[in-house]
């Protein structure tokens, strides 16, 4: 075991899709990577994710730029490491009334200016034969895509320069006298390594604390419903975005319904709720009902389809809704990649690529400043 641990350039903590992407791009850059995971591959947030790769739900800004890069990279990965049910199916956002349509058009216009491909759809039933009639209109986002997150993580980890150690829980850093991370302690002994990347999803805050860093990442629960397998009836990722105006003034937001989508295996996925309730796994009936009614409102034919499964997962929630990607503020050799909330699968490819560039001393192809872990310290 000691020999095996010798010569680790980068130790990635967490075998979710973000950790896997970081490991994958680092290995492709020539680093010898070991991934340690407290449970199994994709056993945390990734295993509970729907596999949404969305640009449609992002307003222009750093997260959209990250998403656009990630879409491109996922398309490449689907060619180079296939086998994770990647589908460039496109997203369809619909709305029930003219106010909503106006807001949706405004958003789409801004997104188009930022590089997103958008197509207005006058009658959503043209794209989705089973969607309810009488909608005001919709916008099609061909770049939205879907993949199977657990398989994606497994495929990304399948690289000759990557070793995966499951059942290993990291307990803290080993630092040099100069204050550089030179390894980690774990429940299975210690590992020496050149760099450490914490990619522990919703548990990253807890883990960062063990390294002496404050990272305000907290779990935000999501619940997903899964139906029995049905013949293909939903072609895109479909959700409603309705305009909710704040009567008092100029603030306005789009409130969206759960995303409804078919899968290559047959089941329809409906997700997800957003609740900050700590690590509570018990799923309230109200959450299930909300998802079900949202889906049936969009696709009336789903009313007769049985739900066979529901599951809860914990998104890594970041207070400013931006992911955390970059070097630790204090500890040299420690890196973070977390805080993607519900977009971790979509943003993983870009996150992995950019962090690998940073770790190997190259200039990241996208400015990481908005995502810097320092920002929380600067704010206090």
């Amino acid at each position, binding site marked *: 075991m000691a020999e095996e641990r010798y010569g680790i350039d980068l130790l990635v903590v967490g075998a979710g899709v973000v950790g896997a992407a970081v490991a994958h791009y680092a290995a492709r850059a020539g680093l010898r990577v070991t991934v340690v995971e407290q449970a199994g591959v994709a056993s945390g947030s990734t295993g509970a994710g729907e596999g949404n790769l969305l640009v449609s739900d992002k307003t222009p800004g750093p997260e959209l730029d990250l998403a656009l890069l990630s879409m491109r990279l996922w398309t490449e990965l689907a060619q180079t490491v296939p086998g994770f049910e990647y589908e460039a199916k496109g997203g369809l956002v619909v709305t029930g009334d003219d106010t909503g349509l106006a807001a949706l058009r405004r958003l789409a216009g801004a997104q188009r200016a930022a590089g997103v491909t958008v197509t207005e759809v006058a009658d959503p039933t043209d794209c989705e034969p089973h969607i309810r009639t009488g909608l005001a209109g919709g916008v099609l986002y061909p770049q939205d895509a879907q993949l199977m997150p657990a398989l994606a993580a497994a495929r990304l980890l399948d690289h000759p320069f990557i070793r995966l150690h499951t059942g290993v829980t990291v307990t803290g850093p080993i630092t040099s006298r100069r204050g550089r991370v030179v390894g980690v302690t774990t429940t299975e002994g210690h590992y020496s390594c050149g760099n450490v990347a914490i990619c522990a999803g919703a548990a990253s805050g807890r883990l960062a604390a063990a390294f002496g860093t404050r990272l305000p990442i907290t779990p935000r629960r999501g619940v997903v*419903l899964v139906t029995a397998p049905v013949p293909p009836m939903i072609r895109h990722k479909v959700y409603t975005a309705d305009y909710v105006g704040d009567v008092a003034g100029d603030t306005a937001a789009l409130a969206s319904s759960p995303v409804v989508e078919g899968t290559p295996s047959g089941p329809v996925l409906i997700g997800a709720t957003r609740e900050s309730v700590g690590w509570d796994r018990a799923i309230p009936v109200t959450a299930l009902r909300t998802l079900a009614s949202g889906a049936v409102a969009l696709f009336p034919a789903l009313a007769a389809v049985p739900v066979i499964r529901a599951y809860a997962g914990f998104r890594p929630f970041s207070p400013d809704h931006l992911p955390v990607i970059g070097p630790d503020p204090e500890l040299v050799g420690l890196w973070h990649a977390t805080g993607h909330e519900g977009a971790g699968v979509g943003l993983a490819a870009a996150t992995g690529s950019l962090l690998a560039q940073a770790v190997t001393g190259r200039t990241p192809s996208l400015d990481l400043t908005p995502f810097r872990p320092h920002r929380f310290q600067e704010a206090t």
Partner: protein
Amino acid sequence: MYDLVVIGAGPAGMAAAEVVADHGGTVAVVDAGDQPGGQFHRHRPGEVHGRRLEALYAVAARVDMRYGHRVWTVERAGDRFAVRCVVGQREPASAVVSGRAVLLATGAHDRVVPFPGADLPGVMTAGGAQALLKGGGVVPSGRIVVAGTGVFLLPVAAGLAAAGGRVRGVYEANRPGRRLSSMAGEWGRIAEAGGYASRLVRHRVGFHRGQAVVAAHGRDRLTAVTVARLTANWRVVPGSRRRIECDVLAVGYGFTPQLELAEALGCRLEPGASGDPVVAVSATQRTSVPGVYAAGEVTGVGGASSAELEGRLAGHAVMGVRPPGRLLTGRAQARRFAYRLETAFPVRDGWRSWLTDDTVVCRCESVTWSGVRGAASAGAVDARTVKLLSRAGMGYCQGRVCGYAVNRLVGGDPMSVPVRRPIAQPLPLGLLAEEGEP
């Protein structure tokens, strides 16, 4: 609102209902079927014969029986419980039955060990064959083989033979002889077992110890099985394979408790006699969740008489009445016996060597042994991560059938077998969308 909502109309549930009714409490019994008695007392409609069955019907007449109700979740709402059900399959509807206490008496189903060809029509669980016989009066035509492990194989084989079935043999993977004779005193308590054995002899049905069906053959339905002698760890003794022509195989490897409602309510689980999880209960059948009781097979597979004792104890506890001492001593005895029986018929891991690459492990999603192995080599460590990477356990039955096997195949901790099924029964999305407040 009822004093008690019983989930499951088997021996445990009906016994609890009777005690609560005797003490003036109000009870509803919800059950997916349409008769009292559960799997153990399953009978053809209208054929209510025998003292025990008549007694069950007498209890059913005194309490609110909610038949055709499949419980998909139990929700805690303050100091009461909302038992949410789907009613019927033809035109499914919703129903909520509320009580200040809940008894989980959901029983068990056959534990399934996969082997090549086990998904062919004609291969069924021992419990399935028993249900067809007792509930439908059906003896499958053709030659029948009974295999697996446990005393349950005897009534199945004897029942089929007595009803005219052509039973070619019973293949018991363990070699129970000596262990069981040391239990002779208690053995008498399930005297039926002796009766079954003599009936098998009368029908010239061979009982083969230390042998198992290790493969099933056929194109569109079963036509033959391969039987082999087993080593102590259940590997095939080289050269011992032989083919037996048959049309039906009834196979059972003990039972798995139905734990999803207990798990969803947050009841503490503990390892049972076999090491697999069961609901942890106090001496009066209280679970770790106040107001939630459990009795019968969910607390450890023990048979009908043990389940009935547990149900009576639960009924007393619900009504706050001190139970007669004989119930407590009877339960303790029954538990000891059940423990010894369960440990006398273990499932040894050698069955894993029976599998071939294309053996179906997860029947719902058609995931094979090579698919499960692939998931394990990609970093899956237990049934849950295997599910994510291979779809095994992701289908309609949610891993009820394959969960045990998948977990054993990847060497997972038995207590990690996924019982987490927040939606315990499929229900139409339209009904879920209209669920009311508790």
